[in-house]
């Protein structure tokens, strides 16, 4: 066991405080808009805190450090693209400003506003499926981090992860977005402190020049140049640009923050400043991975990279970073870092729970009821449905997360599973917002061809992630163009149609 008493005290105090603060949100939940988009009351700074906390989790630190360990400084290209794309979206208001003006609560809701209820349901199903499966791997990876850094016996891992998920579930189910925003603030501050501490330790103990020398000796120029690096190359970089533009505009949990801001201008500011945080969100953990390679990379070569070895035991590259932290951090500091990582875990998981369950309740159940002619439910019943969906998603995650292990580099796996729905959603949203001719036939073609473009090449033809990513976005764009040209013209803009169906709250 690596944990001292002081470390346990810090972690338990954090968990209790987080829980109590989260429950404070309950008294402010009056209706569904309060529950899902915090009454659209988010200002710039709390918006930055909640968006950053939502998209920075232990899973983010783990997969980014794995990328750094496996591919050296060339991996920084992915982080740079994610940050620059976010700053671009924030500065220009690309997509997010127009979506915010429509006063939506979920991304698939836009599909009914612009296209049709049927397409909203199909999109809702694809978004929820892809999102929940994507999130399904989080628990396992987060569990590995906790086990390695604390030295916890493997037999307590399942119970620990279930306890953490239950704590998140309680305050998310009770207080919705308001509770999440309050806890995100605390969690953002804590996870940032942990990030800064780890970076200082990594650079101090591994040394910048030693890290550069290690990457040079193991990978040569490919460890620095993303264009010549075998796993990357130009096609990877272009796919990453498309993917990150899609994530920053159409990813449900990110979009919900934009929908929760006070105004479209606030949403642009939040996105711009969080873009700078995204540079560090990627590059700093990648640096930890390189530090781990420098300090622990002495094992047998696999794919040209030495495996991490600790006390004679060979680990997987993804476990190198927590193993390094267990070795470097002293009592007290280790507790603060783990509390910070737990904060990161809880902020991501609670937001994702709310995001995906909101899609199920708002974009599958509610429109299906309308479709079969059932009267709309009261606000109280809608809230109850949201809470039940929240709980059901949480229970599913416990089982899925503990049973399934993703193959290969986790970052690339998460990218490709996200692309299954993001390619179609991104193309449909852009087409719907900026091209009047886009219509329902085109929307169906784009969603289905985008999903097929990601699934068939990657899972059945075993092509690279970049190839599958390109295929998904390319086919989706072709689907929207051809479907819209052949189908009946919509001849209405999204705001006009929103007014027609009286959908937007």
């Amino acid at each position: 066991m690596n944990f001292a008493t002081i470390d346990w005290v810090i972690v338990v105090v954090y968990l209790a405080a987080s829980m109590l603060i989260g429950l404070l949100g309950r008294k402010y939940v009056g209706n569904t808009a309060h529950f899902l988009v915090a009454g659209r009351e988010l200002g710039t700074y709390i918006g930055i805190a909640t968006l950053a906390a939502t998209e920075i989790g232990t899973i983010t630190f783990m997969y980014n450090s794995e990328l750094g360990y496996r591919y050296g400084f060339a991996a920084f290209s992915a982080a740079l693209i994610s940050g620059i794309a976010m700053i671009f979206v924030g500065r220009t208001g690309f997509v997010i400003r127009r979506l915010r003006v429509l006063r939506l609560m979920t991304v698939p809701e836009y599909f009914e506003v612009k296209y049709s209820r049927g397409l909203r349901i199909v999109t809702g199903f694809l978004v929820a499926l892809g999102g929940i499966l994507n999130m399904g791997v989080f628990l396992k990876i987060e569990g590995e981090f906790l086990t390695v850094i604390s030295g916890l016996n493997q037999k307590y891992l399942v119970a620990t992860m279930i306890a953490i998920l239950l704590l998140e579930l309680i305050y998310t189910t009770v207080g919705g977005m308001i509770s999440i925003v309050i806890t995100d603030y605390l969690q953002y501050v804590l996870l940032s402190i942990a990030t800064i501490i780890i970076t200082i330790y990594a650079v101090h103990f591994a040394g910048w020049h030693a890290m550069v020398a290690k990457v040079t000796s193991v990978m040569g120029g490919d460890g620095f140049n993303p264009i010549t690096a075998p796993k990357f190359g130009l096609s990877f970089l272009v796919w990453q640009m498309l993917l990150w533009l899609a994530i920053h505009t159409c990813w449900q949990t990110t979009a919900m923050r934009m929908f929760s801001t006070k105004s479209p201008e606030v949403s642009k500011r939040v996105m711009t400043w969080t873009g700078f945080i995204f540079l560090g969100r990627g590059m700093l953990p990648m640096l930890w991975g390189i530090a781990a390679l420098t300090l622990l990379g002495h094992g047998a070569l696999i794919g040209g990279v030495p495996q991490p070895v600790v006390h004679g035991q060979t680990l997987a590259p993804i476990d190198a970073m927590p193993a390094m932290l267990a070795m470097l951090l002293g009592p007290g500091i280790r507790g603060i870092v783990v509390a910070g990582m737990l904060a990161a875990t809880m902020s991501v998981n609670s937001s994702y729970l709310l995001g995906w369950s909101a899609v199920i309740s708002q974009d599958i159940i509610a429109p299906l009821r309308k479709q079969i002619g059932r009267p709309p439910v009261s606000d109280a019943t809608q809230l109850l449905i949201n809470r039940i969906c929240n709980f059901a998603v949480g229970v599913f995650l416990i089982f899925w997360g503990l049973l399934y292990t993703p193959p290969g580099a986790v970052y690339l796996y998460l990218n490709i599973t996200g692309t299954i729905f993001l390619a179609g959603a991104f193309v449909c949203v852009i087409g719907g917002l900026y091209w009047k001719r886009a219509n329902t036939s085109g929307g169906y073609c784009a969603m289905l061809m985008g999903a097929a473009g990601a699934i068939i090449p990657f899972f059945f033809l075993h092509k690279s992630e970049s190839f599958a990513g390109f295929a998904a976005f390319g086919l989706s764009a072709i689907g929207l163009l051809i479907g819209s040209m052949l189908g009946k013209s919509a001849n209405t803009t999204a705001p006009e149609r929103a007014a027609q169906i009286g959908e937007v709250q």
Partner: protein
Amino acid sequence: MTGWGYFWGTWLLISGVAFAVITLVVAVKGFQDLRAMFAGLSAKERADK
């Protein structure tokens, strides 16, 4: 160190400094935003009643 080494070193420095500075600003001003959010929600609740 190659040109790429200096390139990534510079971006790393920018990202580290930006991360630390924004954290500090958000920690202070985010608390004021939280209070404003509670006030706004309470006002809406009163208006609804």
